[in-house]
């Protein structure tokens, strides 16, 4: 393909330029279709960016392609998800096959209508024939229609869609009725073409008499398919057979779009039959919040598959081999899953599952059964079940929930013994998954981009579903009544996890209110993110340092890139949690140095020394079990009891002294003597290493004693950092995970706030700074209060850095101080929260509440 080197594309519209990677639609932002640009239009007539032939004009008028004489193909796509408008709001001014000149009007659209009825007006101009492009817009944010914006370069060889004639017989797929609600429009067409390009064979897509090159996005769009259209795939060449199989499956599955699933889905998780759907319009089902948020969606029932197997085996040796093969395969599969999900908690869950599998006690119970002539499946299932019972009967909620994990691993092995295949379940958009229990393996196979929430009958705050939902930022509820399982799939429901309510067939008004609220939040978050690099100064100029709470190098890097001003809390115990032996000295140095480099010399890195104890066991720090670990050998108490551990850690941390503004922080300090002892150890260690410039040394304020004695501690520390989670549970004497007390163990309790106020006052009297690194700092509602109490630094969970910084920028120190004084004299956490609510709105200051 020969292209004109100097071909320039004109802006098809006037408007605001947006980088392609910021477009909130992965098909465009990933450049799957091709490179180009995005314009948020301020004009309403789409004009030709180049001269050529209209190679495709979608009937719905929202997309058009132009091919020029040299073969360059440009796709123009007005808005996101505008295919759903079915042509409403668009007027085509040209026809397919027509020759157009550059700048010629192509499509007129009603911007106000589209803006109010489609997801977005963001308009894409993409070079879909594979050439590279150069931006010639001059870096301005605004462009005028007709102004040159892109220069088209050479064709990229690897994305060529040209098909050389292939040898061999032509194979045809079965006829497939398209499940996509709008046929193969741009998005599914791009996915399909991309898949077709993966095969060497010549591949065509047929509709009635038409046949087109299936590797070309534009060609697929020219078929103008709609829902239910029958198409066929043909392929000629060596991998034709495989191509037909893969591409047919892809078409049936909807090419990445949510479609009504095919009738038979032979998978582990199938849509549960709902013969007698409960008719409960507007009904309200109550549960417990497992992950906060609220969402509207449709019910998807997930039912676990029951497996049948014989009790009697075919000989011990054979059955034993079967079990061993299945265990080996399960181990490999879990290892793969662990890598696949290495970024999230699921990865850790799968590695925990691997450990479970390697535990000898399961095999010890299975082998005698095998020896007595039972089948591999029966023996394994019996062993798993026996252990599950033990877990459930321990009287510990946390371990009882682990029974579910054991059952999950058990099921995985059982299926491998029986050679039952898993397949990925197709989900509709906005799916709210409802199940008795959801196991990690079930959720791993789900397309989580389609899931908007979870609701289960079983489970609790530490169940797998809760962990997954929090990691995905989705709302989830547990403990719903069992009849939620009889809701028909597809039933519209509103899941309000914060209120613990599931509304069946909610009123339109309720849905609209929720949608508006969510959209506002989303827009707000996007804006905060864009402004993440700005300083967090109040309107009257008080600077608040917003830093990151981290537990790994990856989080340190992410925190810095999200605008974090350093690290306010490195939870060092997490760096080696999975280790059964202590990390070597060099290994520790390498870890701390890498994090210190990520933070850099201009910012603080606060390393908290090992905070372990009976509640947070570390394998290489063996401990006697304690009756009440939260009141036992935790934090600095343990470290001082085993000073070699602390010395070792100090010397590893000290190696980073020149790389960053190094701070060391001691957890769980209660006595001044603990601080003095630790400082002595630190100084000795520094002297041994020849380090003269000591790092700053501070303490966590998380025991009420330390807060009350802050004036005694202050002269001897360099800083304080308040751990609000522990401070709250120790002040109120309530376990924050207690099923009935958790909701009262609220850091907004005035008792906790008074301790924060005492700490700040004492610190400032001695010229020391105070940070807050507990969860309270990450709560938007608490920010004005903490600023008003005089806190200097907020160390927050990494994803919330932009939000908290933005919140600070809206505040006025003076107003916050008044607010803090008012709140300190209140009676309860509820009163404090209530008092903060109006100020929350009023402080979005100088804004106008407009009447509609």
């Amino acid at each position: 393909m020969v292209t004109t080197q100097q071909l320039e594309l004109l802006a098809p519209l006037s408007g605001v330029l947006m980088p392609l990677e910021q477009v909130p639609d992965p098909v465009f932002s990933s450049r799957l279709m091709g490179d180009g640009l995005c314009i948020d239009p301020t004009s309403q007539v789409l004009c030709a960016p180049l001269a050529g032939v209209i190679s495709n004009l979608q009937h719905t008028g929202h997309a058009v392609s132009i091919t020029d004489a040299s073969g360059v193909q440009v796709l123009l796509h007005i808005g996101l998800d505008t295919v759903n408008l079915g042509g409403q709001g668009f007027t085509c001014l040209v026809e397919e096959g027509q020759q157009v000149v550059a700048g010629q009007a192509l499509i007129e659209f009603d911007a106000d209508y589209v803006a109010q009825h489609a997801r977005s007006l963001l308009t894409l101009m993409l070079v879909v024939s594979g050439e590279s492009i150069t931006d010639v817009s001059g870096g301005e944010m605004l462009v005028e229609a007709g102004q040159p914006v892109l220069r088209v370069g050479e064709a990229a060889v690897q994305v060529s869609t040209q098909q050389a004639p292939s040898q061999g017989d032509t194979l045809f797929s079965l006829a497939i009725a398209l499940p996509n609600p709008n046929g193969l429009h741009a998005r599914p067409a791009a996915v399909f073409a991309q898949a077709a390009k993966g095969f060497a064979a010549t591949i065509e897509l047929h509709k009635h008499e038409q046949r087109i090159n299936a590797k070309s996005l534009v060609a697929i769009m020219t078929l103008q398919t709609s829902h239910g259209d029958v198409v066929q795939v043909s392929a000629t060449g060596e991998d034709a057979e495989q191509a037909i199989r893969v591409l047919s499956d892809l078409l049936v599955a909807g090419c990445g779009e949510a479609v009504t699933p095919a009738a038979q889905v032979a998978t582990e998780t199938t849509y549960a039959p709902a013969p007698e759907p409960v008719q409960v319009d507007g009904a309200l089902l109550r549960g417990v919040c497992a992950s906060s948020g609220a969402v509207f969606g449709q019910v998807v029932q997930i039912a676990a598959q029951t497996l049948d197997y014989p009790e009697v085996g075919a000989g011990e040796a054979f059955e034993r081999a079967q079990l061993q093969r299945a265990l080996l395969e399960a181990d490999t599969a879990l290892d793969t899953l662990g890598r696949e999900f290495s970024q999230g908690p699921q990865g850790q869950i799968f590695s925990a599952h691997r450990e479970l599998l390697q535990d000898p006690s399961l095999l010890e119970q299975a082998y005698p059964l095998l020896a007595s002539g039972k089948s591999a499946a029966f023996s394994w299932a019996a062993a798993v079940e026996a252990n599950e019972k033990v877990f459930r009967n321990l009287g510990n909620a946390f371990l009882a929930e682990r029974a579910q994990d054991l059952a999950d691993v058990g099921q995985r092995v059982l299926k491998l013994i029986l050679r039952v295949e898993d397949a990925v379940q197709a989900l509709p958009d906005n799916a709210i998954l409802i199940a008795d229990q959801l196991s990690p393996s079930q959720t791993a196979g789900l397309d989580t981009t389609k899931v908007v929430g979870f609701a289960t009958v079983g489970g609790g705050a530490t169940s797998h579903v809760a962990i997954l939902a929090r990691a995905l930022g989705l709302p989830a509820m547990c403990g719903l009544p069992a009849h939620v399982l009889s809701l028909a799939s597809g039933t519209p429901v509103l899941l309000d996890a914060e209120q613990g309510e599931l509304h069946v067939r909610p009123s339109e008004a309720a849905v609209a209110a929720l949608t508006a609220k969510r959209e506002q939040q989303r827009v707000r978050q996007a804006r905060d993110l864009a402004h993440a690099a700005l300083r967090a100064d109040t309107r009257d100029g008080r600077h608040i340092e917003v830093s990151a709470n981290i537990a790994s190098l990856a989080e340190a890097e992410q925190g810095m890139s999200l605008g974090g001003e350093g690290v306010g809390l490195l939870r060092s115990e997490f760096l080696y949690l999975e280790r059964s032996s202590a990390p070597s000295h060099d290994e520790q140095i390498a870890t701390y140095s890498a994090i210190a480099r990520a933070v850099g010399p201009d910012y603080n890195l606060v390393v908290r020394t090992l905070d372990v104890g009976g509640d947070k066991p570390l394998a290489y720090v063996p401990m006697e079990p304690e009756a009440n670990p939260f009141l036992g050998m935790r934090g600095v108490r343990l470290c001082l009891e085993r000073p070699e551990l602390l010395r070792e850690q100090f010397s590893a941390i000290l190696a980073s002294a020149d790389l960053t503004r190094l701070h060391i922080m001691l957890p769980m300090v209660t006595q001044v003597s603990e601080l003095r002892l630790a400082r002595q150890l630190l100084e000795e260690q520094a002297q041994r290493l020849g380090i003269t410039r000591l790092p700053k040394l501070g303490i966590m304020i998380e025991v009420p004693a330390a807060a009350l004695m802050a004036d005694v501690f202050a002269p001897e520390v360099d800083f304080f950092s308040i751990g609000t989670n522990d401070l709250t549970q120790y002040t109120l004497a309530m376990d924050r995970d207690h099923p009935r007390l958790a909701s009262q163990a609220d850091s907004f309790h005035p008792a906790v706030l008074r301790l924060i106020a005492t700490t700040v006052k004492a610190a400032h009297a001695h010229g020391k700074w105070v940070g807050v690194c507990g969860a309270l700092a990450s709560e938007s509602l608490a920010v004005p209060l903490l600023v008003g109490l005089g806190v200097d630094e907020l160390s927050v969970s990494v994803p919330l850095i932009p939000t908290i910084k933005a919140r600070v920028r809206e505040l006025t120190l003076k107003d916050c101080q008044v607010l803090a004084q008012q709140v300190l004299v209140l009676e309860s956490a509820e009163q404090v929260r209530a008092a903060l609510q109006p100020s929350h709105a009023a402080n979005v200051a100088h804004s106008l509440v407009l009447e509609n």
Partner: protein
Amino acid sequence: MFAKLQQAFWKALTPDLVADEPAPYTSTLQSAVVAALGGASNLKSEQRVALTRIRVELNDTSRVDPHALRLAGVPGVMTLAGGVVHLVGVND
């Protein structure tokens, strides 16, 4: 077996046991934007639409000052029929 399990799960569980989702916000127009639209008295309604836009209805669209809007952080402005104005590119 239990101790090992508890430890293996701890990392997945601990960091977020306390929900730290930001509380919802009410976001409205900045005062500079309102001024550039001809002041509060000129505003009939405002609505966020299409991800990146704020749709406002004005009594008099001739009082819009595009330059002042740009200074107030609104990159694009689109004047439509019936007193409707879109503030464009406002998600950042």
